[in-house]
């Protein structure tokens, strides 16, 4: 099955990003396709490479970057939501790209299921 993913919450504050990541890992492990992960609302905060969690905690941003590198998952950050929150190309972590909401709609159209992770 082809999945699209929407992440609406930021890292650490909320479990949404963790759950979305674990869902993607599980889906890929089962042989499903993750077409795209779209980050919206505070979810755009998952994409900043300035994140530095303590050593003994998971690195949520780096984890997404690795997922993109290992499985070619398209990580898209909404431009309007990103600019509101100080996310720009210059502080974007590897594997992420900034684009428009049209990418979310496209994922909704092209995926078999769009799964929303949020509050």
């Amino acid at each position, binding site marked *: 099955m082809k999945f699209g993913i*929407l992440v*609406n919450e930021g890292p650490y504050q909320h479990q949404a990003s963790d759950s979305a990541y674990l869902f993607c890992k599980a889906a890929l492990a089962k042989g499903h396709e993750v077409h795209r992960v779209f980050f*919206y*609302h505070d979810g755009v905060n998952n994409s900043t490479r300035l994140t530095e969690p303590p050593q003994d905690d998971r690195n949520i941003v780096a984890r997404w970057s690795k997922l993109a590198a290992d499985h070619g998952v398209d990580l898209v950050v909404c431009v*309007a*939501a990103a600019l509101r929150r100080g996310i720009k190309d210059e502080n974007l972590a590897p594997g992420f790209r900034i684009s*428009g*909401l*049209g990418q*979310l*709609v*496209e994922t*909704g*159209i*092209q995926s078999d299921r*769009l799964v*929303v992770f*949020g*509050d």
Partner: protein
Amino acid sequence: MTEGTSKKFMFVNRTAPHGTVYALESLEVVLITAAFDQDVSLVFIDDGVWQLKKGQQTKGIETKNFSPTYRALEGYDVEKLYVERESLAARGLTEDDLLVDVNVLSSSELGTLMGEQDVVLSF
């Protein structure tokens, strides 16, 4: 591929218009989805029904009053607006308190409608 494909997109609005940014940013997705010629419907449940309340004044909290946008949705061919009856009643609201024409449905009727959608986005 994307061109010419029309799916049923439902946006489920659950939060008050102010206090969090969900309502404002969700409205942006609705407009883009309509621009992609998709079959768009909006549902307002729980505190989301406040998004449609007439007479919103936001000067005091220094945020944008985006409630007039709901009246402009018709211009984007977004005409399917559903409000949950139970949510209105729980808040002492009636259809007359709302700034647009809506279809008021029961929780179970909304459930049936949700089951008919291709994509459900909840904010």
